[in-house]
């Protein structure tokens, strides 16, 4: 038996008894950023492939959510900072080793790009829209000319944004639960499925809805594969990672993870979408809302559980 106690009365309220440094702001941002990344990637991909007419909502309407999500996410990040007035220090240097640094720079690129993409499609929402000033009209014409380049930038930076939300956590080897490179692709997949779910909610076109139900199904399959892979990795790894996995296999996060993320967030929507594709009548909103809910819960549970997992020495 080994018992370890701190006898000097150390009470670091943000650390003891388990790390308590990140609260709702970070998982909320990871979710919002991931969903925005998913929406923008899908829009850019279908635009580049010239499928704009078939997937009108995904390319032209759903992206209007992205800037809103990104701004809310940035706000959450800002609230999380303890030295708020120094936030500009993020943009005085580029640190390639720090995922948070290139995440900050990625947001610096993708946020304006998402605004420009929306500005180019503003007449789909407000048909009477007028930019009023000549220079704004010129700017619109300029970006319209380079729309394909813009779409490529949006696709690449969207992918980086989606992956970075996971890599951000996996760079911390002090927290064994986070220290797995699967988190990058898992969070990207989760963001893409939330992005596809957003189009599923907004689209009224039957063919488009069918296509996006299929996309969601495929991504849910990938997510399940990645989750199984993640646990295989933990269980075949060192003691601290085995203990991290045990939090989900009988430990304190078992119910919340398997019920909210896996059953309600992945298996249920997959089942409903299969039934819907079989032409059964199912209220259209349920399955995409469950996907978005599962995506949100995944971020919350991983961020909170990661802070509990630690090295013991």
């Amino acid at each position, binding site marked *: 038996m080994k018992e370890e106690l701190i006898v000097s009365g150390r009470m670091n309220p943000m650390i003891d008894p388990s*790390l308590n440094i990140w609260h709702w702001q970070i998982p909320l941002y990871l979710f919002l950023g991931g969903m925005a990344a998913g929406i923008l990637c899908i829009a850019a991909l279908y635009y580049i492939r010239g499928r704009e007419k078939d997937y009108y909502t995904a390319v032209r309407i759903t992206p209007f959510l992205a800037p809103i999500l990104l701004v809310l996410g940035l706000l959450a990040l800002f609230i999380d900072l303890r030295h708020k007035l120094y936030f500009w220090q993020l943009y005085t240097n580029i640190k390639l080793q720090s995922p948070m640094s290139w995440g900050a720079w990625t947001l610096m690129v993708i946020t304006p790009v998402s605004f420009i993409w929306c500005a180019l499609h503003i007449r789909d929402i407000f048909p009477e829209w007028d930019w009023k000033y000549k220079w704004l009209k010129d700017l619109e014409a300029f970006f319209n000319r380079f729309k394909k380049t813009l779409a490529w930038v949006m696709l690449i930076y969207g992918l980086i944004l989606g992956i970075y939300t996971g890599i951000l956590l996996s760079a911390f080897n002090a927290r064994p639960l986070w220290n797995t490179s699967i988190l990058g692709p898992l969070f990207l997949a989760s963001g893409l499925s939330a992005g596809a779910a957003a189009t599923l909610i907004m689209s009224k076109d039957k063919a488009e809805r069918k296509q996006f139900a299929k996309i969601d199904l495929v991504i849910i399959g990938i997510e399940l594969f990645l989750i199984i892979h993640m646990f295989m990795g933990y269980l075949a790894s060192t003691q601290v990672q085995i203990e991290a996995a045990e939090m989900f296999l009988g430990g304190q996060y078992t119910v919340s993870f398997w019920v909210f993320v896996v059953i309600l967030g992945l298996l249920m929507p997959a089942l409903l979408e299969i039934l819907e594709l079989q032409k059964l009548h199912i209220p259209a909103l349920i399955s995409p809302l469950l996907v978005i809910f599962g995506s949100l819960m995944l971020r919350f549970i991983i961020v909170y559980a990661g802070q509990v997992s630690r090295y013991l020495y």
Partner: protein
Amino acid sequence: MRYAMAVDTKKCVGCSDCVVACQTENNVPMGFCRDWVVEVMDGTYPQLEMEIRSERCNHCVNSPCVRCCPTGASHFAEGGIVLVKETECIGCGACIASCPYDARYPHPDGYVDKCTFCIHRIKKGMKPACVEVCPTKCMYFGDLDDANSDVSIVLKKRKYKVLIPEAGTDPQLYFLI
């Protein structure tokens, strides 16, 4: 130059003088500390073994905190001492999450704070406050590149260990066993 510290677990009695000395010297805010004492009880009665360690930042060579810091506020000063520049720190908490030793805390003023090996004292040729004040003289501080420094001499003579070597941080806080 490579500053390091060795703590003799056979001599340490866990009096916490080092903790109080540090809090006073560095004006550490109430409820926080830059160093702390851990007591480990191993075995089953009556075969018990106890180890007492005065712990602090390990000033790692491969520091996850310096690597994860997005602004460069966490940096290496002379002799490999890991420091935080208050005016560059945004208080994002990445370094706190990245430290396997939980050696950092968010200062109420917003930036992240930690052990500095009392760099302001070292520059004047003095020892860190915790080393200076220890009543059992169980702590050794110095330059590992200097074969005649206190820490080099004691590490040559004694068996030692570091904490969580498997985290790959190459810590510079040695515990004599």
